[in-house]
């Protein structure tokens, strides 16, 4: 039998091509993704992975540099004319991949494609992001006015990912072809081939207005298993992978051909507390829960240091952040004292729910910390689908609270988390079921409806002081984005989780 097996193995090996592992040439950059978005149409999805791909093929009016400051892109300058009118000057001589010149008509068309004025059912899931825009006015071939229904301070944030698409081309080929085979933008790379389930192959666009990118070919490969991605990275099958978890980092750091780069991102963890029922209807218990949490310990011991404790849910990179509001210190004694003062000298039993399966160990550790301080916590973990029903539809809320995270929709503004988490308007997110802080709603409303940034900053500062005191959540920490990169490539992780590969360079 051994002879047979050996013979079979040998013959199998002999029939293989000599060099089976594709030699990575210097002009190709290969990115491994867990999956590739199902459409290349940048307006018809709301998937992180789709955004990562789209930005390398399309441009928006504005861009953000690695420090996350606004930078001109298809718009060379912008200003407000009054509270509801914004003026944008368009870049001249920008070419689409098919050779057509970018016009103001294309910009207007792009907005109207998502806004679909007059239609009740909107096709684009991104409609909510720009719904404040009431009118797109072409003033002259180089000037566009965006008119909003009321003062809309988040407009510029929303325009950083709002790709401009070619009107004439889409009207000619149709939406379906544009979404998968005839995708045309103004970005650094153009589409060559998309094999669903396998790879997406792009090629440098020589007429790109920034100048052509360093890598001639950009390939996105679909590799669902993390272990497989790591193996591919080590053997040079891919040059870059995302979301390297804390346990895999040492392996990639130690390997001769790879390195790790990470950056703090907006994704903010929190435990939302039910302020309408016992025991979290009492402020002292909510504060006690905040004192019970060893944020630094979790970040260091369970997240390989790739996180940062937060004072409230307002991220330090978001507009409106007030550094004078400090993080709740870890103080179990004080937690117990507050609990006793609130009328629970023998502690209290609660249940916290979560559908955040990737962070299950962190969830369980936090439940233990609460328990150690007298808030005896049962941690219940759910599959994302049914859990959603339980929390937010069937019963309206989870008993006592839930552990979750919020990505701010990549909007670097305090409003992007305060409104969904704490505003109690019926059409809002979870605030209506959990939160009850006197005077908070009007403050959030006011800050989102004026353009006066210093004034907004003041209001947000007040809000942070108020929520630190009222503790409608257990404030936790924010995450880092971690990339594994081949040593042949020079690239640094960004704070907005973008893979802006125009910045990637071959290492010499």
């Amino acid at each position, binding site marked *: 039998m051994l002879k*047979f097996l050996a013979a079979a193995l040998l013959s199998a090996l002999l029939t293989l091509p000599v060099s*089976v592992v594709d030699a990575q040439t210097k002009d190709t950059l290969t990115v491994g993704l867990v999956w590739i978005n199902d459409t290349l149409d940048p307006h018809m999805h709301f998937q992180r992975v789709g955004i990562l791909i789209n930005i390398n093929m399309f441009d928006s009016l504005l861009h953000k540099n690695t420090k996350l400051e606004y930078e001109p892109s298809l718009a060379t300058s912008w200003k407000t004319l009054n509270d509801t009118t914004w003026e944008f000057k368009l870049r001249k001589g920008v070419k689409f991949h098919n050779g057509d010149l970018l016009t103001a008509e294309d910009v207007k068309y792009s907005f109207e494609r998502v806004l679909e004025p007059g239609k009740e059912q909107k096709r684009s899931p991104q409609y909510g992001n720009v719904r404040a825009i009431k009118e797109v006015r072409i003033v002259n071939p180089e000037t566009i006015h965006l008119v909003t229904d009321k003062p809309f301070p988040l407009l510029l944030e929303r325009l950083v990912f709002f790709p401009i698409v070619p009107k004439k081309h889409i009207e000619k080929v149709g939406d379906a072809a544009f979404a998968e085979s005839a995708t045309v933008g103004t970005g650094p790379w153009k589409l060559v081939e998309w094999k669903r389930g*396998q790879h997406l192959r792009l090629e440098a666009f020589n007429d790109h207005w920034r100048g052509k990118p360093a890598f001639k070919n950009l390939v996105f490969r679909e590799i669902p*298993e993390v272990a497989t991605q790591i193996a591919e990275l080590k053997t040079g099958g891919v040059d870059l992978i995302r979301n390297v978890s804390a346990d895999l980092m040492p392996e990639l750091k130690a390997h001769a051909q790879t390195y790790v780069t990470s950056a703090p991102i907006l994704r903010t963890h929190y435990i939302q507390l039910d302020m309408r029922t016992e025991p979290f209807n009492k402020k002292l218990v909510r504060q006690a829960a905040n004192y019970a949490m060893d944020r630094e310990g979790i970040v260091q011991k369970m997240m390989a240091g790739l996180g940062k404790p937060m004072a409230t849910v307002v991220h330090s990179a978001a507009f409106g952040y007030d550094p004078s509001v400090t993080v709740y210190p870890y103080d179990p004694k004080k937690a117990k004292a507050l609990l006793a003062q609130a009328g629970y000298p023998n502690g209290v039993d609660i249940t916290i729910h979560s559908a955040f399966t990737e962070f299950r160990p962190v969830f369980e550790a936090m439940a233990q910390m609460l328990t150690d301080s007298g808030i005896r916590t049962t941690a219940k973990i759910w599959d994302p689908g049914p859990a959603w029903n339980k929390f937010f539809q069937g019963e309206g809320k989870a008993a006592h609270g839930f552990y979750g995270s919020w990505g701010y929709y990549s909007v670097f503004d305090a409003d992007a988390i305060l409104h969904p988490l704490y505003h109690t308007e019926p*059409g809002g997110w979870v605030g209506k079921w959990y939160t009850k802080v006197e005077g908070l709603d009007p403050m959030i409303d006011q800050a989102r409806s004026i353009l006066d940034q210093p004034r907004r900053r003041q209001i947000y500062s007040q809000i942070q002081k108020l929520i630190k005191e009222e503790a409608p959540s257990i404030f936790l920490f924010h995450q880092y984005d971690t990339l594994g990169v081949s040593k042949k490539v020079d690239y640094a992780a960004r704070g907005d989780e973008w893979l802006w590969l125009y910045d990637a360079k071959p290492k010499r």
Partner: protein
Amino acid sequence: MTALLVRRVIRLLVVCAGVSLVTFSILHVSGDPAALMLPEAIEADRIALRKSLGFDQPLATQFVRFLGNTATGNFGNSFYHRKPALHLVVERMPTTIMLTLAAMAVAILVAVPVGIYGAVRRNSVTDHLSTVVVFLGQSMPTFWTGIMLMLLFSVQWRLLPVSGWATWSAAVLPTITLGTFTAPLLLRIVRSSMLDVINLDYVRTARAKGVSEWRVILRHALKNAALPLVTVTGLQFGLLLGGAVITESVFAVPGVGRLIVDGIRQLDFPVVQAAVFMLAMIVVLVNFAVDMLYVYLNPQIRVR
């Protein structure tokens, strides 16, 4: 023969209805696709999406509509890919079938000779060794076998690509992985059924006639011993299709299995329904073919 065909077609229809009902129910209790598609959107957007997908209708209405559509081969459009679900499945099907057939071939090529050898040289060192290998093979889960093979052949020795499906060489590891999953069982079946027949009178008669030993084994004994092998191979085919789900994910093979896994993760009902339905059809057809093979191998069997 006609009666047989009619019975089989009826059975096929019953299986179709059963598979539809089961996949439909399991998917619809598993969660709300609108919530997964728009996790951070406001409630009004989600309500609109549910309406456009028809999820605002009562479940019974949805099922009747689903059955009607299925009967005409229309599984609806994928929520994510915005394409007919059946189209996506058919596009991926050849890859999965190729992988499954190749794995089956590898398994049979290993199991039959080794099994026969084990039966003929019973209790030899090789026989015992093969038993150990069988145990090992059966105790290793597919994803583990796959990752170990990948570590050895791709990362350590750099002989084969880590993953993908672009070249022939990329197909080697997934095929072996999936083959390893089924070879042990086949090997055991071959060995034990060979042992059953090898001492029967007709085999002895053949030997007495002076037929050469190999001819006795391959022509006379094997043909009778093959019956259980054919049965099990047919049954294993369905299991292999299931095993392909994991293998395809590990090796990034663009087959139906991965389509199902992604579909479940995204609660993309039409895709999962179409894929499970098509796979069920294949299993039914394979079993039908197995029944036919029976008749060829042993005309005494009257299919009732």
